[in-house]
């Protein structure tokens, strides 16, 4: 699939995963690469971008037997952005679908 399609929606997918609950970077990377074909290294820049944009915050959580894990958590802004972007995307996808179906008749 065209890489340009993925790029735009990956942020939304990451937000969706973090909306469920706080996760650490590797968890997000694994969950995404299960359904979307992408290089494993792509998720971390996205997480970082979301952080600099103020949509997520991080905190470290000490795990028994291992270095502390960095968890990502949605901020209020992140939650708001997710709700809006999700609605936008679903609406957009619906419109595209209807165009494609109508023209194929």
């Amino acid at each position: 699939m065209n890489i340009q399609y993925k790029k735009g929606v990956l942020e939304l997918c990451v937000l969706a995963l973090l909306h469920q609950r706080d996760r650490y970077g590797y968890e997000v990377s694994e969950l995404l690469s299960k359904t979307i074909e992408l290089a494993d290294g792509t998720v971390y820049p996205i997480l970082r971008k979301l952080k600099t944009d103020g949509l997520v915050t991080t905190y470290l959580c000490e795990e028994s037997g291992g270095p502390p894990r960095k968890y990502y958590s949605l901020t209020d802004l992140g939650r708001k952005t997710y709700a809006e972007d999700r609605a936008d995307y679903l609406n957009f996808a619906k419109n595209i679908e209807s165009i494609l179906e109508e023209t194929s008749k």
Partner: protein
Amino acid sequence: MTKLDYLNELKNELKKNGVVDSEDILSEYEQHFLFKLADGFPEEEIAAKLGSPETVAAQFAGIRQERKGTGGKKAFLVAGLAFLGILEGSLDLLFLGFILGLTGAALASAAIGAELILNVNFAGLLPPMPYAGALILGVMMLSLAVLLMIAALYCFAYLRQMVRASLRWRKNRLSEAALPPLPTSPQFSPKTRRAARSVFLGTLMVFGVSFVLGYLILGLYTHSWGFWHALGWFGYPPVVY
């Protein structure tokens, strides 16, 4: 490419792209390697699946740099923390002095106890008394020494934990990825706690019993409940038996 090669190259690429905070990013990728290795993937394959360090670094370079707290605000914070640190440090020192005092008292009690039990009177420090009484009082002094030492150790553990918690708190104020705060009271394992408690209670019991017993023996010996008068302690004229 091995894990080390990959991380090194990524570091160089990040530097080339002028990305700040590369430590933070590298640790994320290192963890990725560790998780994957734990799942049994070879390093080469993990590195290949991550995408080339160049591409990854380029993705980081596209993000606008985050601004860490403005200079003035940070300087103010550091000054505040330093001032607090002086206050805290002096209180800690005071507490440390108290702990050293406790330790000294414990050592002195132990020395006196040993002298009493071994029936030596080094430097003529001990007042005269019959050996039966001295033995019991020696046991008492030894148990007192143990009690004081336990107190000193507990206080030291407390001081140590307070300093650690305070350092953690400082670190969290100054850096952005915050670690969970530490408790200020010492955390012993249940096993240690139980052991310490039973040693303390046992020793306390020995102390109480030997105190009463020693008092009784010396009282009976001198036929006086104020035996220290009769034995001629503290400058009283001794009664000769």
